[in-house]
């Protein structure tokens, strides 16, 4: 049976943050006509095309600057990274190569793709969610035995 972690569950801030993310994706498609898919925006920089570089850097810079602006006015919410450096390297490699073969990540497929009712994005999202569940299950319950 599924046990809910009531102490950690933050439905309102999750919903509010989700709406802000949705507004970002909405603004981006309606103003610029592009999909707010982080892996695609970043990956496109590795094969730079003419007149297709600066907006990518601008978008990624916006994401990078967000916590810096936040810190000027308020304390940053917790960012706890418990994985070791070797695990982070393996995770990064898998996320990098996987999102490029799969043509998207949580933002491009999960948010934008599901919003435009794409079957391809639904398959991708279900696939990476299941892979994530299985991976965490193996690490937390089979290997660590917690």
């Amino acid at each position, binding site marked *: 049976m*599924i*046990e809910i*972690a009531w102490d*950690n569950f933050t439905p309102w*801030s*999750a*919903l*509010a*943050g*989700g*709406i802000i*993310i*949705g*507004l970002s*994706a909405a*603004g*981006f498609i309606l*103003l*610029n*006509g592009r*999909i707010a898919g*982080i892996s695609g925006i970043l990956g496109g920089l*590795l*094969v730079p095309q003419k007149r297709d570089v*600066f*907006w990518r850097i601008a978008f990624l*810079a*916006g*994401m990078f*600057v*967000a*916590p810096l602006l936040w*810190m000027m006015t308020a304390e940053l*919410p917790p*960012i706890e*990274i418990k*994985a070791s450096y070797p*695990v*982070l390297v*393996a*995770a*990064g*490699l*898998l*996320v990098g190569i*996987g*999102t*490029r073969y*799969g043509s998207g990540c949580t*933002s491009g497929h999960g948010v*934008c793709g*599901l*919003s435009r009712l794409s079957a*391809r994005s639904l398959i991708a999202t279900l696939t*990476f969610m*299941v*892979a*994530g*569940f299985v*991976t965490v299950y193996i690490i937390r319950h089979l290997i660590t035995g917690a």
Partner: protein
Amino acid sequence: MKFNLASFGAGLLFGIGLLVSGMANPEKVLGFLDIAGQWDPSLAFVMGGAILVGLFAFTVAKQRTTSFLGFDMRLPASDRLDKRLVIGSLLFGAGWGLAGFCPGPGLVALGAGKSGALVFVVAMVAGMGLFEVIEKNRARN
């Protein structure tokens, strides 16, 4: 100029949304992925909130050929359900479950000055580079 400015604004808003939602925190994401442990459903609410807004925006976007700033409306054309999509998503999901990072939160945590995020982002860019190298070699052969 307008295009770049809107891109920066969208990226900034996206980053703030990730911070507000708690999803910039890998432990929070892993709490969602750990369905056999103490499960934190927050991530589902983030997706729900984002898709709620997105549904309206993409309904409007689909009916237009240009954006409101006058740029081409570029919606993905592919509807192929192929091996690449599934295998790529499997690899991504495995990496996501390993550390609790997907691309967006990785960049936000990097901006927050976390050394672990730097390691993750550098490896992620290397993984993307590996994809380009493999694809280039395949195209040549």
